[in-house]
């Protein structure tokens, strides 16, 4: 009889069914043919004829074609045996499904791996994005690499220094424009906050002074109207117009396309809108956007009494240029250098004293790289950010070590499974691929979660770093290169450590492993020492990070709790501006006093006072003083204040009196100094003594008599040492400004204080502009860098400690599992549970001690490089080291207690039977 099965099988050959399905069909159809054959025979048909008829029927139609539409074509299911027919890819899907099932079954293992990876990848990407935004991204303008910043090589700035990172005066800028040759175009700009409101609560807009060439040299095209050109910018231009930033136009004008010709009110002055810049142009300074730009020549409109525009010592602009083709920064600098002497000669402020004149004249102009714009953030945040990146990198290393450890442990645990599979005929490559697939699945999941984390983390960071609501601090873009790099590293780790043991395990003869499976081949010293090494690395690195976290957290605490000489809580700073009232100078101080009186009368207000300089605001006024006819070479910080200032600030008067109504324009000039001033200049006994402020050339010097000494207070920065300070009564100021800062101390809620003060001031005159800043929050904002470091390093430190603990736990648990048999023998021979416990914990302890010792050395070395970022601490602060080591040790030992207790509780007989 013919082989009907073979007949059918042949017809199905090319269709690519799964073997199982093919067998089913072959079975069923062949059975049918057999039945038919037998029926033919019973009807008296000859065997030969019956065969012929059946073959004819089967071959008449194409079974394969009929089936093709119905039957799913299966990818080759490859059993773990050597399958000659399988292509490299065959069975891959099966591997993926199997792998994900295995991972689902080991939830804890999978979660730890994926989270470790995600945190490592996400954190690194997020921090790198910040660095990129602060440090490396070029300006979104035409050919940014051609841009250069033109400024003097030494800082001889004195006089009025105004705005954001100014480096030239207007006169200097005009001379640069006239005499430079290396640039196709040069431009200047400066920053100013404009108040959009006309009285009442201030609504700030970030303003920019720009020279006429600004937009043309940068190559910015308007999306509406026109931008400034050279001819718009000339002395006495008045208010030729304003150019709006795209976002500002959206926000303030609702994207009105007819905005050109409408007006925008800046400090009450109506500027016609000329045009709108494209959305892509966000300004030229990283971390400092702009809302509205007005020409440099409009500045006198805002400061008619003492315009920076004409003031020789008014530093308020930044000069930049676009290099000519073929010109380098060196060549342009050389050309600028050759004309510097002439420029300095022509622009020397006449008010400068002799030593300052010398310094000013010695300045040389240089061209510095300008492709990435200008940024103060860069100086402030660059080193902390790099440090954070190093920290995040270490976390990634620890995470990878953890991963390696876990993968090693797993591969060892699965040796028996692998051996069984190989004994059943699985090809080595096939088993390796299976393990590889699992590693890749883990890595992929980790990397994906890492991406999500990177997005979330960088968004959170930007929110954290944006102190003023509504201002764009930084634009962060997902950096796929970094992401790719970190994810690649993670994948590599997974693959390497997932594979190494797999390769090794598949080397050995299966029978041997199966026989030895209880104790395992991998319990050998060699493999185990690799895992110990990894744990020691983890412990030491995480100690470094924990020490770092503690150092930064303690630094922040030191700064936050240090005695600044005043009480930070319960105060609101009120910025008051009344230029619009056009008060003559003589009436300004009485007007301020009338405001103060109103505010002091408010219920809940404990004290209130004016000051020209708010401590720790970053602004200041300083000068040299003349004591006993000799100019002293120590700079003294100064401030004009109203009576009651020290009471408001909570700064105690050590000796003498506060200012009062006796101190006025007619009375002799007086001052209150701090202890440091008294000590430096008068040997501690300053009361009644006199000194002078070093005046500009040609100005009269007044004698100031010290009427009081107050406790030392910080001035610019909480981190500084106490410097000599002098306070003068604002009533004796011969050029009182049309603005002041009122400090209000109150025990009421913030909102009610603000509302009360706002109403009280509006009652005096509704044209007064006010802006409020809760003082303690402002100080905290000023400590952003320290807080960022403390927060992130703590986060990473904890993370590192957790990862290291998991690593240690894994190794110890693994050791216990591997040595169950041995533990059984020990117990059978009389070891007590306590001894077993001690043995296991001792094992953990020895790893910990080695790790901590290495870590301590590393931490001290690493601390030195971060010493400039610390406050009130030494990098090798012993307390911090001990705290970190003790904390890490306690957590790690606690973690190893779990497997240790499990070991101690073993029944000797059960343990001995353990395979």
């Amino acid at each position: 009889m013919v082989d009907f099965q073979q007949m059918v099988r042949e017809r199905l050959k090319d269709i690519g069914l799964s073997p199982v399905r093919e067998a089913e069909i072959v079975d069923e159809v062949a059975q049918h043919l057999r039945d038919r054959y037998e029926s033919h025979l019973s009807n008296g048909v000859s065997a030969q004829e019956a065969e012929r008829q059946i073959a004819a029927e089967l071959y008449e139609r194409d079974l394969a074609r009929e089936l093709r539409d119905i039957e799913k074509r299966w990818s080759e299911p490859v059993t773990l045996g050597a399958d000659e027919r399988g292509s490299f890819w065959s069975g891959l899907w099966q591997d993926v499904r199997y792998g994900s099932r295995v991972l689902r079954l080991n939830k804890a293992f999978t979660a730890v791996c994926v989270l470790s990876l995600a945190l490592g990848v996400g954190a690194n990407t997020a921090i790198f994005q910040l660095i990129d935004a602060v440090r490396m991204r070029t300006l979104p303008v035409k050919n940014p690499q051609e841009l250069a910043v033109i400024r003097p090589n030494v800082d001889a700035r004195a006089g009025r220094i105004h705005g954001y990172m100014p480096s030239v005066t207007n006169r200097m800028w005009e001379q640069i424009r006239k005499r430079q040759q290396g640039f196709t175009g040069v431009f200047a700009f400066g920053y100013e906050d404009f108040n959009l409101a006309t009285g009442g609560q201030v609504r700030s807009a970030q303003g920019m002074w720009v020279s006429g060439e600004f937009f043309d040299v940068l190559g910015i095209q308007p999306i509406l109207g026109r931008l400034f050109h050279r001819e718009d910018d000339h002395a006495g231009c008045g208010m030729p117009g304003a150019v709006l930033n795209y976002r500002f136009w959206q926000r303030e004008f609702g994207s009105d396309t007819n905005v050109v010709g409408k007006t925008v009110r800046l400090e009450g002055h109506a500027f016609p809108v000329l045009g709108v810049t494209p959305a892509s142009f966000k300004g030229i300074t990283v971390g400092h956007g702009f809302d509205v730009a007005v020409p440099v020549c409009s500045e006198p409109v805002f400061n008619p009494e003492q315009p920076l525009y004409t003031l020789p010592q008014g530093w308020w602009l930044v000069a930049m240029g676009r290099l000519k083709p073929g010109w380098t920064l060196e060549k342009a600098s050389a050309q600028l250098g050759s004309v510097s002497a002439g420029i300095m000669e022509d622009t020397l402020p006449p008010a400068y004293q002799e030593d300052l004149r010398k310094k000013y004249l010695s300045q040389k102009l240089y061209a510095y790289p300008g492709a990435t714009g200008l940024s103060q953030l860069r100086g402030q945040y660059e080193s902390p950010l790099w440090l954070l990146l190093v920290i995040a990198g270490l976390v990634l290393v620890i995470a990878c070590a953890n991963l390696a450890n876990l993968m090693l442990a797993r591969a060892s645990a699965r040796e028996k499974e692998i051996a069984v599979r190989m004994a059943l005929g699985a090809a080595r490559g096939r088993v390796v691929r299976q393990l590889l697939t699992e590693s890749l699945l883990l890595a992929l999941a980790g990397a994906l979660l890492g991406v999500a984390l990177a997005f979330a983390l960088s968004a959170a960071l930007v929110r954290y770093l944006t102190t003023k609501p509504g201002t764009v601090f930084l634009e962060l873009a997902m950096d796929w290169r970094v992401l790719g790099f970190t994810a690649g590293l993670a994948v590599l780790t997974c693959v390497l450590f997932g594979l190494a043991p797999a390769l090794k395990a598949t080397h050995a003869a299966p029978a041997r492993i199966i026989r030895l499976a209880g104790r395992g081949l991998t319990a050998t010293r060699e493999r185990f020492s690799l895992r110990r090494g990894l744990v020691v690395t983890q412990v030491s690195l995480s100690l470094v990070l924990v020490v770092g976290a503690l150092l930064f957290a303690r630094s922040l605490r030191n700064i936050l709790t240090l005695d600044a000489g005043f009480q930070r809580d319960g105060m609101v700073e009120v910025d008051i501006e009344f230029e619009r009232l056009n008060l003559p100078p003589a009436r300004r101080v009485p007007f301020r006093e009338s405001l103060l009186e109103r505010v002091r009368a408010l219920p809940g207000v404990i004290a209130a006072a004016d000051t020209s300089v708010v401590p720790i605001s970053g602004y200041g006024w300083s000068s040299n003083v003349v004591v006993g006819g000799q100019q002293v070479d120590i700079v003294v910080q100064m401030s004009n204040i109203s009576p009651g200032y020290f009471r408001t600030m909570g700064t105690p008067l050590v000796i003498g009196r506060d200012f009062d109504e006796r101190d006025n324009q007619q009375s002799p000039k007086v001052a209150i100094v701090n202890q440091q001033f008294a000590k430096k200049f008068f040997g501690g006994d300053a009361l009644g003594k006199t000194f002078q402020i070093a005046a500009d050339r040609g100005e009269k010097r007044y004698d100031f008599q010290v009427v009081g000494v107050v406790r030392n207070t910080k001035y610019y920065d909480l981190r500084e040492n106490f410097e000599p300070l002098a306070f003068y009564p604002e009533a004796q100021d011969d050029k009182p400004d049309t603005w002041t800062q009122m400090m209000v101390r109150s025990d009421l809620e913030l909102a009610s204080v603000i509302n009360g003060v706002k109403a009280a001031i509006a009652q005096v005159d509704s044209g007064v502009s006010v802006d409020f800043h809760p003082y303690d929050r402002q100080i905290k904002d000023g400590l952003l860098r320290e807080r960022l470091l403390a927060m992130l390093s703590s986060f990473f430190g904890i993370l590192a400690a957790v990862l290291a603990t998991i690593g240690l736990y894994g190794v110890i648990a693994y050791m216990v599992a591997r040595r169950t048999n041995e533990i059984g023998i020990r117990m059978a021979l009389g070891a007590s549970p306590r001894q077993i416990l001690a043995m296991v914990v001792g094992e953990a302890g020895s790893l910990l001690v080695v790790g901590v010792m290495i870590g301590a050395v590393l931490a001290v070395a690493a601390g030195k490089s971060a010493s400039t970022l610390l406050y009130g601490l030494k990098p090798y602060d012993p307390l911090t080291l001990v705290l970190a080591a003790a904390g890490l040790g306690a957590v790690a030992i606690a973690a190893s207690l779990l497997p240790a207790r499990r070991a101690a509780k073993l029944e000797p007989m059960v343990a001995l039977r353990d395979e």
Partner: protein
Amino acid sequence: MDVTSSVFDRELKKGSAELLILSLLEVRARHGYEISQLIEQRSEGTLKFNVASFYPLLYRLEKRGWIEGRWVEKAGQRRRRYYRLTASGKKMLKEQRRTWAEFVEAMRRITGVGQSV
């Protein structure tokens, strides 16, 4: 190859054969050979399946969920695959019967064929 079977094979694809199979499975579960024999016998040889079209048709019905196959081993016999009607198969059978009746009735009215039957 006889003409009827060729025509009928074409009909298979049009779906009338489905009705035949579903009807035969209404009473009890049957294996493929039995179904094809019953069709041949009851139509007195007029309707005949080619094996290469018949099994694909069964698989299609199975895939649609109208019938369900199960391997059954009986003592002294080779294992066979028995098909039975599923719930949705029953619904489909009812529907196809109605459609078919309407179709036959329409044909009858027009052609006059089968009037006396």
